[in-house]
């Protein structure tokens, strides 16, 4: 028996605005930061990974690059605010692993921060 359209509508699921996302691991965040930095620099993430490998596992960034990367990563994770105001100082935004570590350490607190807006 064919279901009429109004009955089908009642079965639709409401999708939340922000999808629930499991807290990413530090390695996942490093990968996200590299992908975002590649977009900022207009190059491939493979190229950056190669540079990072050659430099012993670290890749420096200028602070405007880091803020742009942060913005891209925040969008990647559903618009969450992933850094506090005090994190956006040049001393805190020096490299790929430092930024990934900062985001990782701020994750739960950052969610609280956003809910207070």
């Amino acid at each position, binding site marked *: 028996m064919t279901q009429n359209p109004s009955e089908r509508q009642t079965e639709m699921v409401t999708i939340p605005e922000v999808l629930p996302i499991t807290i990413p691991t530090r390695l996942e965040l490093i990968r996200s930061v590299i992908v975002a930095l590649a977009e*900022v*620099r*207009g*190059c491939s993430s493979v190229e950056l990974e190669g540079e990072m490998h050659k430099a012993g596992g670290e890749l420096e960034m*200028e*602070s*405007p*690059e880091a*803020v*742009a990367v*942060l*913005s*891209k990563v*925040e*969008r990647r994770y559903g618009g969450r605010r992933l*850094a506090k*105001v*005090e994190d*956006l*100082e*040049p*001393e805190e935004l020096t490299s790929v692993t430092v930024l990934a570590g900062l985001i990782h350490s701020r994750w739960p607190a950052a969610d609280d921060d956003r809910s207070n807006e």
Partner: protein
Amino acid sequence: MAIFVSETNISVAWVTGLTKLIEAGGEAVNLIVAIAKPLVEIQEVRSTLDEFIAARRMGNRKSMEKVSTVANTLFPQSWYRANLGEAAADHLYELERETRSASHRTAKHGTYFERMVAWPDPEKGPVNQLSRAIERLSAARERGHQRGNQYEVGVTGPMEEGIAAPIVVPGHDNSTRGFPCLSHISFSLHKGELHLAALYRSHDYVSRAYGNYIGLGRVLSFVGNESGWPIGEVTCISSSATSEFSRGGNFGKGAVEDLLTKCVALVESEQ
């Protein structure tokens, strides 16, 4: 009484400006600094100033900004990617748009660069003044013009015909202190070179001027590169300038004089 400084590079111009400012008692009106090569600096002078700044940031990060941070508020050089060729300018503008929300967390009024590429026209929406200047200057080059001060317009808002870029937003920027200290920049063509003039209503000379000169040089370089003009000089007019040790300033007079002595020695060793 106006003070006029005309020097070859950013470092020498800044050191000479500070010297004359201190000779005038630490404050001046109409300090005019012209820099013939606005992409050139003596790295040791910047490092010495950054050390002075870092010592104060150790105690309070909000007390001063690094030279590079000040320069980046005018032009975030690392967003302008030469490897992208003709797409580099659009990439730069896109990064500014994407990053604006995060930038506003630390600079609630926005940045000077934002005012240049997204001046908030209440009726038309954001106006990209640099893009507009580049279009007009490119057209002038294609027509074979060698000078272009006929385009110069005194404005309080962006104009279709202008190659001047106001920073201030009338009715919005009502504070007598703080952002925006830079009121206006304009571009002029002369003898086949592109020049930039900037007007600051007030200038904290130790905290801001060096980074501002770097940033203005980058703005000029960007517009020149995108429009195909070789660049000339940057001239910065500080309607009011302070060496920040008088009238409850940020530093002791001795500290500023020590900084200047070190920087003068570095400049002399280069010459």
